[in-house]
C-alpha cells in the first residue's frame, strides 16, 4: 500500500525529482569521452563529432562497449567517469 512512498527528510528547497548532473560550462579545455556502443556506422558518426569537439578546443577520448546488446561493463563506466568531464554516447545505428 505505502511501500513505494517516502517522506522527504529535507527542507524541501530543491525539487523532489532527481536532478541532472551539472552541465559543462564550456567545451574548450574539457575532456570529453565518446562512447561507441558498437553498432554499425557509429565510428563514422563519432569521428565527425570528435573533429568538431577538437575544433572547439576539447580533448577527446574514445571508448567502445564490447556489445551494444548489454549495458556497459562496470570497469568501462569507471574508466570513463575518472578520465572525462562529460561523455557523449552514440546510441543508435
Amino acid at each position, binding site marked *: *500500500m*505505502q*511501500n*513505494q*512512498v*517516502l*517522506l*522527504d*527528510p*529535507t*527542507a*524541501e*528547497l530543491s525539487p*523532489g525529482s*532527481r536532478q541532472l548532473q551539472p552541465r559543462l560550462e564550456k567545451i574548450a579545455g574539457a575532456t570529453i569521452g565518446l562512447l561507441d556502443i558498437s553498432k554499425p556506422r557509429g565510428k563514422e558518426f563519432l569521428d565527425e563529432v570528435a573533429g568538431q569537439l577538437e575544433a572547439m578546443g576539447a580533448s577527446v577520448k574514445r571508448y567502445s562497449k564490447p556489445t551494444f546488446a548489454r549495458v556497459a561493463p562496470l570497469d568501462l563506466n569507471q574508466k570513463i567517469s575518472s578520465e572525462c568531464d562529460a561523455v557523449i554516447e552514440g546510441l543508435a545505428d
Partner: protein
Amino acid sequence: MNSSPSFTLVVKKACPTCTLIEPVIAQLADSVDLRVYVQDDPSFLSDMKNIIDDTELEFSYQNQIEIVPTLIRDQGDGSTQRIEGWDRAQWQSFTALEDLGQDIAAFKPGCGSLTLEPGMEEKLALRFGSDALHARRLELAESEDMIEACYERGWTDGLPVVPPTPLRVVRMLAATELDPDEIIGSVPPDYIACSVEKIAINAVLAGCKPEYLPTVIAVVRAALQDAFCMHGLLCTTYFSSPVVIVNGPVARAIGMNSGINALGQGNRANGTIGRALQLIIRNVGGGRPGGIDRATLGNPGKYTFCFSEDESDPDWSSLAMDRGYQREDSVVSLFAGDGVQPVMDQLSRTPESLARSMAASLRSVAHVKRFGMADAILVVCPEHRRVLKEGGWSKDRLKQAIFDELMTPGTELLPGVDGMSEGMPDKLKDKLLNKFRDDGLHIVTAGGTAGMFSAIISGWVASGDKGSQLVSQIVQ
C-alpha cells in the same frame, strides 16, 4: 416525532462471544433497526440483512471500537450509548427486549477489536485518520530500490539509511505527545524551521526506534541552543562536531551503552541518536561536507558520537548533576568535540599520580602550547575511578588537581619556545595560564570494568563565549 432507536453492532467471527450471540443477533435483526459490521470474515452472518464488511476496519477505527461485540444505540437525537461483551441482562435493558438471548449463557466477556492488534493503530491512522503528516511525499517507481533512492537523493551520510515510509514515520511520531507540526527551532546552516515531523523522519533514516524520539528531540533542542553555536561548529575547518552524552533514567530505559566499548560501535541507541542529529543538520539544515561544512579532516564521530554515562556509583556525581540537574532527571548534554585520545596509566595507585598522568595527557589538547582555547571531556574509566575513590578523591578534587598541575607560566608557551612557532600571544608572557577555562573541563565516567584506560575527548578550539559551550537539555 420521537423515533425509536437504531442499533449498530460490531463483531468478528474469530471471537467466541460473537459466535455465541449469533441467535441474539438474529433476534435483534427481527426486532429493531440493526446494522452489523464484521471485522474479519464477511461470510459471517451473511444470511442476514444489513451485514457490512468492515475488514478494512474503517468503521471500527472511526468509532474507536475496542471490544467485540460492541453494541451501539443511536437515539436519533445525536446521542449514542454503547455496551461491550455479552451480558444478557444488560443487553435486554439496553435494547428494551425482555426475552433477548434466553437460550444462551447469561454472560461472556468479549474479545479485543482487530483495530487494537499490535502495529494496526498506526496503519489505520495513516489510512483513515486525518493525515497529520505534511512532509512532501516522493513516489518511487516500483523498480526502484528504496535504500538506493535515499542515496540518490543525497539523504545519507554515506551509510545506508532506513527508508522513511509514512508508516515508519507515524510509528516514530507515536512516541511523542508533541504535535508533528510543532517547530523545535531553526536548524543551521540554512536556518530552516524544523518540525517534530522532520525530526521523526530523520530519526527513521538514522535507524532509531520510536522510543528514542524524545531523546532525539532533546538533542536537537540542545544543539539549537545559542551557547552551542551549531552553525559555527558546522562551518569550522577544525575537526569538531557534536558529542552527545545522555544521563539519567532514559539512558537505561532505552538500553544505551555506558560500559564496555561505550565510545564505540554496537549499540543501537548510542549509534542512531547521534546519527539522527547529524542527518537533521544535513537534511533539514542543509549542512554538507564541502558545502558549509569545511572541515579539513573531520573525525569519525561525525557519523555519530553518542554515549551514556556510567552512573552505577552513587558517590560520584554525573555530568548532569555537575550541571545542576538531579540524579533522576533524564538529560542530554552536547559538547563540541572530536577524536578520542587515550590516557593509559596502568601503574598509578594513588589519585595524585593518576591526576598527574591525566593532566600531562590533557596538556596536548589542540596543541601543547595552546591554552584556554579548547575545552575537553575527560572520560574516566571505572578502574581509574576506583583508584581515585580509594584515595578519597571526588570529581571536583580531581578537576582541581588537574588544573593545578596544568598551570603554566606564559613564558613557557610563547611562539618559538621549544622550537615550535605555535604558541600563546606575547602579551600573556607574564601570566600564569590554565590549560582550560574554568568551565572548560568536564569529567564523565564510562567504559568497561577492565582496563586502566581513560579517554580525552578534546574540544573545538573555539570553546567558550566566543564559540561553543557544553549545553544540556532535559528529555521530556
